């Protein structure tokens, strides 16, 4: 069923009796050409693009819980293409271009809102870094604008401009960045994939791989054995747990990242802002809640809940940037598990096992990457070669020294 304004009006006049479920609930078949493990944003996007762009039809997505219940439903919904390094920025620009056409492409309202992202700067050195980053973005086809303090004041007059320690000196504005209704991304991809024959199998946990003579032949699941031509793993924070079943140790640690939403407010924050002197970023959802977050908690965790120190730290950062936040009540806080890699950048690559492919290590930046990660992973699964924008995301880059370390922190995941 295609969705349209006409359809909404027609259903309104006929008692809303014509709506059908957005995807089927099929029984797993004994064999598929492609099995994608993980029914999150990336896994569903991979299946969608495999079907739509690469002409495949015998595809299954296996999800241990319900689709969209992991990080695609836990993030702070921001999309952007403002990376610095060559290995990254073309990929994120590709992703942002896909976001721009996504709703028409999959016929679903994902509320893509390019409301602009402003990275504030507080020192001369930060301004230099922002100028360099902006130039790198523009060179890769993205957009960037360096604002002086008056430019920032016009957009956000209520910020703490004259803080004695961290005065606001300006900011790097990325107008095409913005926010997306994150659950709708998972649902839109799921529906689009299902319409093209992809089996989305929920409550189906992968318990092992069948690997013979260095080739992956299928997966053992809680709903029986499923054979596969190729298996793609796309499970975010659970990457190490799943790949361990194939005997692999990954260059990553799982960390918990918290996010927060305030009570609903009238429109106050038109875009996304990030604080340059502390780790705090914030936007306002269409329901009115301020959505914000900061650092990961900093220790390995699979708990999907965090501790008080980061909540305090984020609140302090928020109030020092936006003093008015002191009057706002926190509504909810939650955590998601990040597969933090050793250089802060992801992996989309084959493994040493034939027929087994991996997409992960997205750290806390996986949501914005969803369309391109799905596309590039589908490209790899179909053609056995990396997509042009994802050639740097290799497993062996750590051993060969070709790391993509945006922050220059070295091999310690909790510092990225």
């Amino acid at each position: 069923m295609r969705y349209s304004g006409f359809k909404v009006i027609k259903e309104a006049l006929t008692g809303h009796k014509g709506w059908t479920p957005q995807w089927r609930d099929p029984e797993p078949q004994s064999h598929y050409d492609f099995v994608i493990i993980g029914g999150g944003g990336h896994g569903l996007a991979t299946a969608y693009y495999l079907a739509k762009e690469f002409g495949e039809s015998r595809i299954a997505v296996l999800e241990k819980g319900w689709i969209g219940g992991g990080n695609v439903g836990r993030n702070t919904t921001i999309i952007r293409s403002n990376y610095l390094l060559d290995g990254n920025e073309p990929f994120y620009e590709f992703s942002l271009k896909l976001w721009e056409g996504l709703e028409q492409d999959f016929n679903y309202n994902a509320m893509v809102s390019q409301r602009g992202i402003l990275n504030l700067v507080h020192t001369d050195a930060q301004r230099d870094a922002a100028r360099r980053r902006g130039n790198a973005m523009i060179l890769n086809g993205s957009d960037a604008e360096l604002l002086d303090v008056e430019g920032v004041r016009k957009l956000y007059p209520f910020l703490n401009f004259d803080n004695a320690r961290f005065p606001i000196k300006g900011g790097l504005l990325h107008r095409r960045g913005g926010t997306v209704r994150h659950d709708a991304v998972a649902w839109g991809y799921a529906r689009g994939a299902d319409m093209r024959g992809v089996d989305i199998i929920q409550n189906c946990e992968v318990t092992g791989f069948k690997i013979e003579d260095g080739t992956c032949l299928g997966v053992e699941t809680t709903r029986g054995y499923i054979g596969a031509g190729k298996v793609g793993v796309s499970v975010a924070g659970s990457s190490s747990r799943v790949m361990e079943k194939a005997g692999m140790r990954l260059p990553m640690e799982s960390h918990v990242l918290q996010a927060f939403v305030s009570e609903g407010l009238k429109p106050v924050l038109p875009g996304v802002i990030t604080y340059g002197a502390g780790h705090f970023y914030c936007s306002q959802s269409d329901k009115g809640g301020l959505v914000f977050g900061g650092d990961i908690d900093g220790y390995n965790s699979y708990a999907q809940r965090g501790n008080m120190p980061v909540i305090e730290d984020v609140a302090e950062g928020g109030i020092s940037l936006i003093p008015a936040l002191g009057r706002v009540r926190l509504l909810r806080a939650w955590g998601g598990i990040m597969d933090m890699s050793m250089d802060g950048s992801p992996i989309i690559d084959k493994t040493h096992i034939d027929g087994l492919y991996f997409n992960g290590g997205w750290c806390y930046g996986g949501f914005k990457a969803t369309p391109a990660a799905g596309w590039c992973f589908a490209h790899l699964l179909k053609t056995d070669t990396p997509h042009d924008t994802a050639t740097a995301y290799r497993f062996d880059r750590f051993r060969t020294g070709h790391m993509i370390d945006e922050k220059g922190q070295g091999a310690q995941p909790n510092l990225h």
Partner: protein
Amino acid sequence: MRIKCPLCGERDRREFYYKGAAIDLARPAPDAGDVAWDDYIHNRENPAGRTKDLWQHEMGCSAWLVVERNTVTHEIYGVELAENVKRGMK
């Protein structure tokens, strides 16, 4: 989360710096080769459940500690001085 430093007693997590898995105590030999060093520097077990990692009581006695804890429940089973653990490995 509270960690019981063997020297200072139970303290708030804020006093401790986190380094990562306690594999740092098992460095390969300098001439072990790039495969061993790559594995040591980059690859991790990253278990869901019981793990041992290195913390430093940065805002206390500065001792390096091996903390055995659960990554799913955040329960802490035990804390030892890294110095003693390292001696025990020899």
